[in-house]
């Protein structure tokens, strides 16, 4: 009995520590009024799938996604808050066993895409966009193999097409 209890405690701690870093980062800032926070669950992705056309690949990818969480900060790059978020993110990426998939820069806009795999093909994709006065953190969770994840990066823009965002004009969200 003692052994089972110890094993359960260790399992719980491991599970908590795996989810903690990235989750705690989102938890820390999602309630902050200076941030914009959006959470999309599996249900809404199915809605997107229903309206997003009948492409087989797209449907398959959508079915693999579990959730999308977006955290946005509109602040000056030199502000203390921005520095704090960037510092926290660096720690999460470093300690969370993330690997870099894409690093892109265009006229002062930067995109970093990180990914990691946990047990049973659970994947986390972390997209970080930095531009003048805006910092966004997009966390996509899903159940996919490393090959499937790499497939999303194989073609330019293919990953975003998966979500139904094909080169749209940037309309303001009201």
């Amino acid at each position, binding site marked *: *009995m003692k052994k*089972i*209890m110890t094993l*359960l*405690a260790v399992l*719980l701690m491991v*599970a*908590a520590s795996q*989810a903690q870093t990235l989750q705690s980062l989102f938890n820390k800032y*999602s*309630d902050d*009024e200076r*941030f*914009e*926070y*959006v*959470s*999309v*669950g*599996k*249900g*809404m992705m199915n*809605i*997107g799938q229903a309206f997003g056309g009948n492409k087989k690949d797209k449907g398959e990818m959508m079915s693999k996604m579990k*959730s*999308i969480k*977006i955290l*946005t900060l509109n602040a000056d790059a030199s502000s203390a808050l921005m520095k704090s978020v960037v510092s926290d993110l660096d720690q999460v990426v470093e300690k969370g066993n993330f690997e870099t998939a*894409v690093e*892109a*820069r*265009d*006229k002062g*806009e*930067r*995109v970093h895409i990180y990914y990691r795999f946990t047990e049973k093909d659970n994947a986390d994709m972390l*997209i970080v*966009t930095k531009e003048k006065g805006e910092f*966004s953190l*997009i966390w996509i969770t899903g159940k996919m193999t490393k090959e499937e994840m790499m497939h999303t990066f194989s073609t*330019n*823009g293919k*990953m*975003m*097409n998966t*979500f*139904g*965002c*094909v*080169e*749209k004009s*940037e*309309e303001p*969200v009201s």
Partner: protein
Amino acid sequence: MEMMNELLEKYFRGETSLAEEKELKKYFSEGNVAAVHEIYRTLFEEFRQELNETAKTPLKKVIPVQRKIKQIWIQTFAYTSIAATILLLVWIQFPQTKENFAVIGGNKIENPEYVQRYTEKKLSKVNNILARSMEPMKSFNKVRQDVEPLQNVRNKMNAIQNKLIIK
């Protein structure tokens, strides 16, 4: 008769001794029962018949298990801990059923259309940056495609050269 009345009253009050009950049973089984007591005869007859009944399957001897208090406490604690752990794991796996919402300026917005448009806008922005920054890669691919026929020519030339050498 008077004595039997008293005994019956005591019996129904539950105050009779084993000897008195034995006497009552004997009285009702002998057949010399007064008319006023006739109504109780079936009751005592039933008791007598039950006495003669035997169990069809062997009865198990039940001994009450006296567990130690400490053992009970450990087991209770263990089961509670296991239940709490399972609940916690389930809670971690299934965080919230209502997952589609936006929090803008401290205000929670649960409009699915807004949430979807916001998400699309953000992903579209990433897509645009990626598309722009990967533009040189397209040119590179174009050059590679253009050079491909030349590679075929080179391969054919090599093949011809090899044939000539062999000859």
